[in-house]
């Protein structure tokens, strides 16, 4: 063992036993081992997602004929908008260590209410849409009350409200479908910006994405959510209002789900009770693929946006490439599992190496 090697095994060893080690002064010097500055951003989990997205987009442009066109951009974005919208508040909810399975049902309920109010006639469409939004907010507040105030487990509560809200949508609209929305409005929802193929409505979606990005990454409230995800007790000790934060997150989730429901209704110009059904699992899959930990405390908005777009691009690209829908869901599932199993295996290899190095650096008996 030359002197070149001796410091190297020592650093991880002291780092590993840092909090318990007695020799704290020596440790601190070699502590900042993590990446800093530019390389931290360029090599982080989010960046990897964005690279993956870029690779897939470029690959699709090169390999699949007709992929690189404004039509692609238009349909791809219109397809991912509902998932992208709901993924924003869902990211925040999962970062706090909770979950919301009722989002698609909330969107369906909104759609049903809009349909019935509009078909009933005599109401301005904007008032109808506003009431639809309100329905989503109330639905979210109901979830928030049961989870944050009463303190029930969110997984169980939102399975319940998944059935309840979808059931209420059925009660409201039954088997009917309402389709006669104002043509100007439905045309607006599918219109594109010039010849770029980007849907006009994307501007609004971008505002929502930016808003949630700012809330999560810049405001004290958002930073508090990470703390909440790590430990509820610790978070409340440092002065984060746990119940209130969670309650408002669920209200936001309900509101954004309602927006997704409104979008769904007007894009397809059809209000039905089963609109957006099954979307909850697609949203959660995209969020987890985007690097949010299901245990809470980890994740970011840029990563999630890349995750949503990655799934959307792969699906659309494969469909254009005449790959059947069948393979699509297998790809989604495999991506999801790989995105969580991969880091876990990587971590255990690192751990194993680490232990081996410690053993080697310890004095031999």
């Amino acid at each position: 063992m030359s002197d070149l090697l001796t410091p190297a095994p020592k650093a991880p060893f002291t780092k590993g036993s840092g909090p318990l080690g007695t020799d704290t002064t020596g440790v601190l010097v070699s502590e900042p081992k993590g990446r800093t500055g530019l390389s931290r951003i360029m090599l982080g989990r989010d960046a990897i997602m964005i690279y993956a997205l870029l690779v897939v987009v470029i690959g699709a442009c090169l390999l699949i004929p007709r992929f690189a066109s404004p039509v692609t951009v238009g349909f791809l974005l219109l397809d991912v908008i509902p998932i992208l919208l709901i993924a924003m508040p869902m990211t925040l909810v999962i970062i706090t260590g909770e979950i919301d399975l009722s989002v698609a049902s909330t969107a369906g309920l909104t759609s049903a209410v809009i349909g019935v109010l509009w078909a009933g006639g005599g109401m301005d469409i904007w008032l109808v849409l506003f009431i639809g939004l309100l329905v989503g907010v109330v639905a979210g507040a109901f979830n928030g009350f049961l989870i944050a105030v009463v303190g029930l487990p969110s997984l169980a509560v939102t399975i319940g409200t998944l059935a309840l809200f979808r059931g209420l949508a059925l009660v409201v609209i039954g088997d009917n479908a309402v389709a006669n929305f104002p043509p100007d409005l439905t045309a607006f929802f599918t219109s594109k910006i010039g010849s770029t193929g980007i849907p006009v409505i994307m501007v609004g979606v971008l505002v929502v994405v930016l808003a949630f990005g700012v809330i999560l990454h810049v405001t004290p409230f958002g930073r508090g959510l990470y703390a909440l995800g790590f430990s509820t007790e610790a978070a409340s000790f440092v002065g984060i209002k746990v119940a209130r934060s969670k309650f408002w997150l669920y209200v936001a989730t309900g509101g954004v789900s309602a927006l997704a429901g409104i979008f769904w209704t007007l894009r397809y110009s059809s209000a039905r009770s089963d609109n957006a059904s099954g979307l909850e699992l697609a949203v959660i899959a995209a969020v987890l693929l985007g690097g949010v930990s299901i245990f809470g405390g980890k994740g970011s908005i840029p990563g999630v946006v890349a995750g949503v777009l990655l799934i959307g691009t792969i699906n659309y690209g494969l469909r254009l490439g005449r790959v059947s829908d069948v393979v699509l869901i297998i790809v989604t599932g495999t991506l999801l599992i790989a995105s969580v199993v991969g880091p876990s295996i990587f971590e255990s290899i690192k751990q194993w190496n680490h232990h081996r190095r410690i053993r080697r650096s310890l004095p031999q008996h």
Partner: protein
Amino acid sequence: MTNTTATKPTGGGTPGGGPVTVSTERTTGPIASILRPRELPVTIALVVLVLVTYLANPLFLSAQGLKDLLLNATIMIILAVGQALVIITRNVDLSVGSILGLVAFATGTMFATTDLPIIAVFLIAMLLGAVLGAINGALVTIAKVPALVITLGTLYIYRGLNNAWAGGTQYFADDRPDAFGNLSVDTVLGFPVITLIAIVVVVIVAVYMAGARSGRDLYAIGSDPDAAKLFGIPVGRRVFLAFLANGLLAGLAGVLYASRFNSVGATTGTGMELDVVAAAVVGGVAIFGGSGSVAGAAVGAILLTTITSALTALRVDKFWQQAIVGILILAAIIIDRVASLRTAKKLRMSEARDV
């Protein structure tokens, strides 16, 4: 010790003024131990639902009506029992609907293209289910990734495999031997044969969970995985086997599905997973593991499937059905919370007295 407890009641411990032991032993009476509080609310709800419906419409409990009720509940009972095993270990399996679909289609294929005897088809199908469940279990225990994520992934993958295999193909009842279809037509003592199979499953698993050491281990794992590990329980192996057993039961449910329903194809069993979890939760299985029973989960499954028929018999608008299911789930969670708060309070008081 007895001295202190005897003098305590004056301090306002027990309302009746009697010795403390009375209040703690009340829960171990013969009836209470059979229907422990967790299963009681759902059982009462089921009895009330059936009675009310019967009084309003006596046809509800006619021989045919009863048979339909049991047939409808059978598949959900088996799935809920398997799911309860997994949830008790503080995991969840969202892929059961996809496993059921894949196995049901495999069953249809075996009958349509081979001459295998029925019993062989049963065994192969259950084996297929067990393999699919084992994949879930292996991913969860080896990669140490939350079951919610893994099984959400395999939900998609198994469904995709089913789609890829089936394409537009569907197998109908006339592709299958009559004896197989008759399993869900013939009755023994008023019970359809497939329901008897489900009852046998419930009894076996319930006895295992209550009596076998490895069954009790599942509760320990669900209550506190770290403590279970320290105690020497092979957590990984037990959880793996719970997933495997759940897959096996989902496979059995898949075969019975093929017997019960006319057609099996690419979309068989879609969206069943949340209903199954809901049945277990309604049946008193705590979503974070550690408590509940498979019998409760089975009753929860019966309750959820009976509601549909009951609402039809009561001439309630069928659109209300799902909303009522949602309310039931929420009620079950709230009752569970109230019960556990009460238990915690009781424990705290008895501990305080013993000090």
